[in-house]
């Protein structure tokens, strides 16, 4: 298996930070707010590898830093320290060392993101097809007919009625908005997809349909994904490997089955017990 992403020592501190921040926060200190300088240690020393076509789950409670990890990798937020190498077509990209234009290029061409809140991922002032067009236009497709055909194909794939392609996603149900977001993220056939709480807030049958869709996409396209969720059912279904985060630290990592069936860390044990 070939590696697609290598993350080492990823750290994000909100606030000015002080030399004691790292020591004074974390699961042992039971906080992620530094008592000395009041900075928030959103994530510290997060390291993992992701392989082609693999789904990695990141679980943890609210504020544990799971979304921070994904946001920095998608360039929505800049890390305080750390390194991430993206392997693509025999090339290596040191993500945080690239200039803004190169970062935007990667984000538009090679990455995809699906947010929990469709407002973040979609522009509600343009049609569903227009949203997909935006992503294609960002990756330098400038043939109107080709854009229409690709948008239609993607919406059909994500089971959004083609007849509603030219409507604003504002008129869509939550599940349909999420499907449009997925279609938009897939528009450029990215090898790496970030999913941030994609099924939260949807009803159970819609959740199941979206999860099925994600699995099918992984099988068809071999897309590597990082799935951030607080729902253990989602990682059980999707992810081969999982990281458990608390107060910005990775406290346990390994095969999803192992973590869910035989959690080692006290917090993971509580998390798994609470879900059952």
């Amino acid at each position, binding site marked *: 298996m070939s590696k697609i992403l290598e993350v080492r020592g990823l750290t994000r501190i909100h606030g000015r930070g002080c030399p004691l921040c790292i020591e004074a926060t974390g699961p042992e200190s039971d906080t992620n707010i530094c008592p000395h300088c009041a900075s928030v240690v959103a994530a510290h020393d997060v390291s993992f590898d992701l392989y082609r076509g693999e789904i990695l789950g990141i679980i943890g409670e609210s504020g544990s830093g799971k979304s921070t990890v994904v946001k920095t990798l998608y360039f929505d937020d800049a890390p305080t320290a750390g390194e991430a190498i993206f392997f693509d077509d025999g090339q290596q990209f040191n993500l945080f060392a690239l200039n803004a234009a190169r970062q935007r290029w990667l984000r538009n061409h090679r990455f995809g993101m699906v947010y929990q809140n469709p407002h973040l991922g979609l522009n509600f002032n343009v*049609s569903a097809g227009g949203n997909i067009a935006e992503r294609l*236009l960002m990756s330098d497709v400038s043939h109107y007919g080709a854009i229409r055909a690709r948008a239609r194909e993607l919406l059909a794939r994500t089971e959004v009625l083609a007849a509603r392609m030219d409507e604003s996603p504002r008129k869509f149900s939550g599940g349909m908005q999420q499907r449009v977001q997925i279609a938009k993220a897939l528009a450029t056939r990215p090898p790496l997809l970030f999913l941030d709480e994609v099924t939260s807030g949807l009803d159970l049958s819609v959740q199941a349909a979206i999860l099925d869709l994600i699995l099918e996409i992984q099988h068809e396209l071999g897309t590597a994904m990082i799935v951030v969720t607080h729902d253990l059912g989602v990682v059980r279904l999707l992810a081969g490997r999982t990281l458990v985060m608390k107060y910005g630290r990775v406290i346990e990592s390994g095969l999803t089955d192992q973590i869910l069936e035989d959690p080692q860390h006290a917090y993971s044990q509580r998390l798994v017990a609470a879900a059952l």
Partner: protein
Amino acid sequence: MMPHYELPRDEAGYSFGFLDEYAKKEVRRAILKAVSIPGYQTPYASREMPMGRGFGTGGLQLTLALIGHNDTLKVIDQGSDDSVNAVNLRQFVQLTCPGVALTERTEDATLIQSRHRIPEQPLRADQLLVLQVPYPDPLVVVEPSEAKRKIMHGEADYARLLVKLYEDIVKFDEITISHRYPTRINGHYVIDPSPIPRWDVPRLHRSPALILLGAGREKKIYAVPPYTDAVPLAFEDQPFRVEDFRDAAGSRRACARCGATDSFLDEFIDSAGGKVYQCSDSAYCNGRLARQAKAEALA
């Protein structure tokens, strides 16, 4: 010239061209930068002018910073030399720049200040066109934050403008932007070419004359330098088109005055309630009429 008012001409009075020499120097410096970076919106210290912002103060400051004793100025508003804004600006220049010649003939002018139109008569390399701009930034319709717009310009990130064109084609089967058509200059910056109709956009492309655009209220100067590419945004299979002046039968409408079939036409309603078409560029129309009269007199 206003007969009952004259500017004070003593030592404490106004300098040639109303603006003081330091102000002119600053505007010229911004012009040089704008010409060096085609399409880039160069900020400058837009002065208070003795007229409301939005009445061409940006164009006027460019004109006053550039004009000299040997220049011949033409001012156009909506294609016409006789509309209120054009007359006022021309009188102001006459008042503040003694000795400068004024003309209505495009071919005689060395400096042309315009709003809404580029003259039909092709411009020459020794001429200079100044356009008044109300809204310099084409991205303002898709991104409210100026800080973000600057980054988008820097990275030539114009996908969201194209999304607007896409939505137009979806809804109306064609691009409906009638004026201020976003145009890419020299392969990078996209500009708002002021409220000129689509008809005039191709005239920006590789124009022999330097074209300067000034936005007084928004405090920006930008330029299309001579012989520089100016390509309107479009799709590969939905090319940019200029206005279509064909009637229902498919033949090109002609100007009711001079009979021109190659000019941008304005539509009027005559006293009988019918539609009449006439050249929007009055100097072009008058020039054609004069030539026709001459030819008739000879015949």
